[in-house]
């Protein structure tokens, strides 16, 4: 049984190993602002949106490529599946803006 669990753990690790080149970047929202986005990301990477603010926010692409609802305290992982430059904003507080650049 222990062996089986060990095998399952190994399988899990090996399933994750191709992801070693794929990175997760945290973008934090606080005081009605988006924190800085990474200067460079690639398809396959993940953006983790962390809402450290008191308010409900969203990370919504101008071109509707993504629209992530972020409750106060929420952490939401968003895999990057499409290359491009995405201007995004909070649909509840449209003064909150940012830009995400995703390379192929």
């Amino acid at each position, binding site marked *: 049984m222990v062996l089986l669990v060990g095998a399952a753990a190994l399988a899990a690790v090996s399933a994750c190993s191709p992801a070693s080149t794929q990175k997760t970047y945290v973008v934090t929202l606080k005081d009605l602002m988006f924190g800085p986005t990474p200067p460079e990301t690639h398809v396959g990477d993940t953006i983790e949106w962390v809402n450290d603010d*008191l308010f409900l926010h969203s990370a919504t692409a101008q071109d509707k490529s993504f629209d992530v609802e972020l409750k106060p305290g929420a952490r939401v992982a968003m895999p990057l599946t499409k290359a491009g430059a995405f201007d995004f904003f909070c649909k*509840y507080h449209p003064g909150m803006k940012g830009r995400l650049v995703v390379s192929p």
Partner: protein
Amino acid sequence: MLKFLASAAAAAALVSAGAAHAQAAKLNDAQIAHIAYTAGNIDIAAGKQALAKSKDKAVREFASEMVRDHTAVNDKALALVKKLHVTPQDNPTSQALSKDAKAKLDSYAKLNGKAFDKAYADNEVAYHKTVNGALETQLIPGAQNAELKSLLETGLKLFKEHQAHAEHLAATLK
């Protein structure tokens, strides 16, 4: 003589501005917290009225946002005053705000449909402008406690966002 009168009037205006300033400077943190909390509650009440009366999708979304955001700030404010062992203190500014807000709620209760939507949106623009001004010139500079000051600064950012949103909403209802 005319010159004398003019300078006397200018001096009187200065004295009165000075008195207003002295009064503003006298607000303590317990009063400032009360004013900020009252200002938030007024917008929550207006938002709830809009949710009860309006059928316009954009107006309802805006009103929901006002209720949600101001409730979040006020909950935080309540937790802060509890932590600081401060009891918010009623004062003439809070009383004037509440009286004015009650009159507006009563008058808007008689409106319906587009007339209500427009009155609500226009008033939200004016109200957020007024509160922004008070936060910037009076409440934030007057706050002594750093955490209260910081929460008021968050409140100001929020109110500015809401003002922009209200202006956009009011423009679409014209």
